[in-house]
């Protein structure tokens, strides 16, 4: 033990590598970037999700480049941006480690000189630690800035961030994960995910007991991040039903996870505008003219025109609107004939699509109608109260549910309503607080900037509302009459 500990510091990288290489040789091919992969670019704590496509220009931190050179390289590789392309960089851990020590010395010197600029230098040194190229420029800029010393700590930190952004040019290519995407969205576009912070999302997945083999309902307007996070935890086992408002399910964020295709087979969606019909047993999924996109009437108008990723195979749910547009324009007789033909083709296509949609709807309805789902996860900009009261009916008893809201007040209402209504125990309204630290020799302190809030969660567990006399009876008075549910086929999962 003692021997090993002593050795650790003198350990040479070549020795380390040899030691590892000796055992358990992995197949590298699965760890290399392939064309078509969804990857995440990283610089400092800035992330961006992109798909690797040949010749496709990507903009990241105000730099344009193509990702072609990343193909075939290992995930985790750091590249330099050189004239619009990526060039792999040699790893240099020894250097950056030496940097850290030098930085420490520098700072101690500053601490002793009787001035109080310690944090400024501190922050600068922190940057050095990250071993990123281009930072020398930032350093120079800072030291030559006459106004820098007059700024507040926070202004200084922002100044550094800005300069860092502008001049550094290394990019790391990472495999996407819930961790990375949650941090990416929170950092770049919190508005798109209702300001759901990564630690709050982590808590949702855990409190929701999300795991392989279960049947989970998700209602979210977080660009698909929450849905993707749930799917990642399901690992392609079980089923996820996305309950969606408006014109179509939004799931741009799910793509970024880069799931294998079989994951998508476990994903179903159901428009919430059919929830009441399903609960009443009046949802007829056999009829041909049922309009599965009828949910436009939701308080969701702003979102309806942009079903960001309506499941590739489905095509656009706005096809009808498009053909209506064509009708209203004036045209010559020849053009009109052409157009009539086109319209017929479109009509056919539409019928096929409608049939596909109907089947999908039937499959989702079949999953829901047993009212035996294992989990419910809600994170949206809708008022959570009617959402949770409506969807909790689909859960089996003794199953967790978790509701996120950016605001506390609507969850207070949820809490009160659920208490009045019964059917749920262990209700807890929580928020959490996360703090990151700078840990450096003689300069350890919490980060100067922190998130002001990560939103609120209401969580609990369903229970049966009847006494145990009715052993295997219907779990709710609202159980739909079975005969009304004309489902023509079963669904997988």
């Amino acid at each position, binding site marked *: *033990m003692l021997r*090993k*500990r002593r050795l*650790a*510091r003198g*350990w040479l990288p070549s020795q380390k590598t040899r*030691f*590892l*290489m000796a055992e*358990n040789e*992995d197949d590298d091919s699965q*760890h290399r970037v392939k064309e078509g992969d969804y990857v995440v670019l990283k610089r400092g704590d800035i992330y961006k999700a992109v798909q690797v496509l040949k010749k496709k220009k990507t903009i990241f931190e105000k730099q344009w480049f193509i990702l072609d050179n990343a193909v075939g390289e290992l*995930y*985790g590789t750091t590249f330099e941006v050189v004239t619009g392309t990526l060039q792999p960089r040699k*790893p240099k*851990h020894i250097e950056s*480690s030496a940097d*850290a020590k030098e930085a420490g010395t520098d700072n101690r010197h500053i601490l002793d000189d009787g001035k109080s600029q310690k944090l400024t230098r501190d922050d600068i040194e922190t940057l050095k630690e990250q071993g990123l190229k281009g930072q020398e420029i930032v350093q120079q800029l800072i030291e030559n800035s006459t106004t820098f010393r007059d700024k507040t700590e926070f202004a200084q930190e922002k100044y550094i961030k800005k300069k860092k952004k502008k001049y550094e040019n290394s990019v790391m290519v990472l495999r996407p994960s819930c961790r990375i995407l*949650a941090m990416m969205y929170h950092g770049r576009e919190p508005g798109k995910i209702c300001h759901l912070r990564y*630690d709050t999302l*982590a*808590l949702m*997945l*855990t*409190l929701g*007991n999300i*795991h*392989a*083999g*279960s049947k989970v309902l998700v209602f979210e307007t977080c660009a698909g991040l929450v849905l993707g996070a749930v799917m*990642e*935890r399901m*690992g392609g086992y079980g089923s996820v039903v996305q309950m969606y408002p408006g014109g179509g399910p939004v799931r741009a964020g799910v793509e970024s996870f880069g799931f294998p295709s079989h994951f998508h087979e476990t994903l179903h969606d159901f428009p919430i505008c059919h929830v009441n019909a399903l609960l009443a047993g009046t949802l007829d999924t056999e009829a041909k003219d049922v309009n599965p996109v009828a949910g436009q009437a939701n308080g969701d108008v702003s979102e309806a025109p942009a079903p960001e990723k309506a499941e590739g195979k489905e095509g656009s749910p706005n096809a009808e609107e498009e053909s209506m547009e064509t009708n209203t324009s004036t045209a010559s007789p020849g053009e009109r004939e052409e157009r009539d033909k086109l319209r017929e083709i479109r009509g056919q296509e539409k019928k096929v699509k409608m049939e596909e949609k109907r089947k999908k709807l039937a499959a989702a309805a079949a999953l829901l109608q047993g009212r035996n789902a*294992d989990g419910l996860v809600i994170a949206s900009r809708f008022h959570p109260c009617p959402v949770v009261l409506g969807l909790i009916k689909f859960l*089996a*008893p*003794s199953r*967790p549910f978790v509701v996120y809201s950016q605001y*506390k007040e609507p969850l*207070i*209402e949820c*809490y009160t309503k659920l208490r009045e209504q019964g059917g749920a*125990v262990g209700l807890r*309204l*929580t*928020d*959490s*607080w*996360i703090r*990151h*630290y700078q*840990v450096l020799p003689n300069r*350890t302190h919490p980060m100067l900037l922190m998130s002001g809030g990560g939103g*609120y969660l209401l969580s609990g*567990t*369903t*229970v*049966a509302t009847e006494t*145990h006399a009715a*052993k295997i009876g219907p779990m709710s008075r609202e159980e739909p009459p079975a005969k009304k549910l004309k489902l023509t086929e079963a669904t997988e999962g």
Partner: protein
Amino acid sequence: MSFVEYSEFIQEGDVAIIFLGHDSMMPVKVQQGAQTQTRYGVIRHSKDLIGQRFGTKVTCSKGGWVYVLHPTPELWTLNLPHRTQILYTTDIANITMMLELKPGSVVCESGTGSGSLSHAILRTIAPTGHLHTVEFHQQRSEKAAEEFREHRVGHLVTVRNQDVCKEGFGVTGVADAVFLDIPSPWEAIQHAKNAMKKHGGRVCSFSPCIEQVQKTCEALADHGFEEISTLEVLLRVHDVRSITLPLPDFGSARPLETPTPVSSNNSVLCKTTTPPREMAGHTGYLTFATKPRM
């Protein structure tokens, strides 16, 4: 019942969580003919539990009633017998996400302790992952192994009774993630690295004291780990309450008037929340790092 799969009905040998009321629960091992005493009276397992649906309301002998819940790692964390200090759900949630655990992950953990985190890991990595958990203390490691079997997750976990700082995790090049909750995590960093897959993975160390964090961060950097990041998460549970705010009486502006009688409208009702008077102010620092491909 299993900790990685829901069942509809309660069976002999299951663990069930008896929910007695707000923040009051107890775990029971369901056994034909057994009885459990609660403050609402006796629960007879054969009649009241076996064959019932999880989530059912059970009326106890004294007429009071309880709910019988399906165990989850989170309910277990609230109900498990403490053999050591344990990790709670807020830290567990962040550890799980930040270690990028998912079905199929291979994880190394030390120490096993009371198994609070272990159950949550197993839930997440099932059905295809594996947990290698190392516990220094012999009785504790035996008890943990027994619990895993009883909770029907034994096939997903290997419990080792050894000193991780001296003997490591007992596996090499297999782990996607390593978790350390030991007094001297810096002494186990090389072992963590050895246990991990060649192409890399994530590591987490939980330590209550900042000096432990400092040494651990130094050791991680010395061993070539990247993205070293220390954080802390605290949860605040809010109590939902209706409060009455009295309105002040500034009196009448007319001179010499007698005071207005108490009006029925002299207070306002308001729904709000109050924070707990005291809450967990610190559990530990979580230090995460990435092992790069070597």
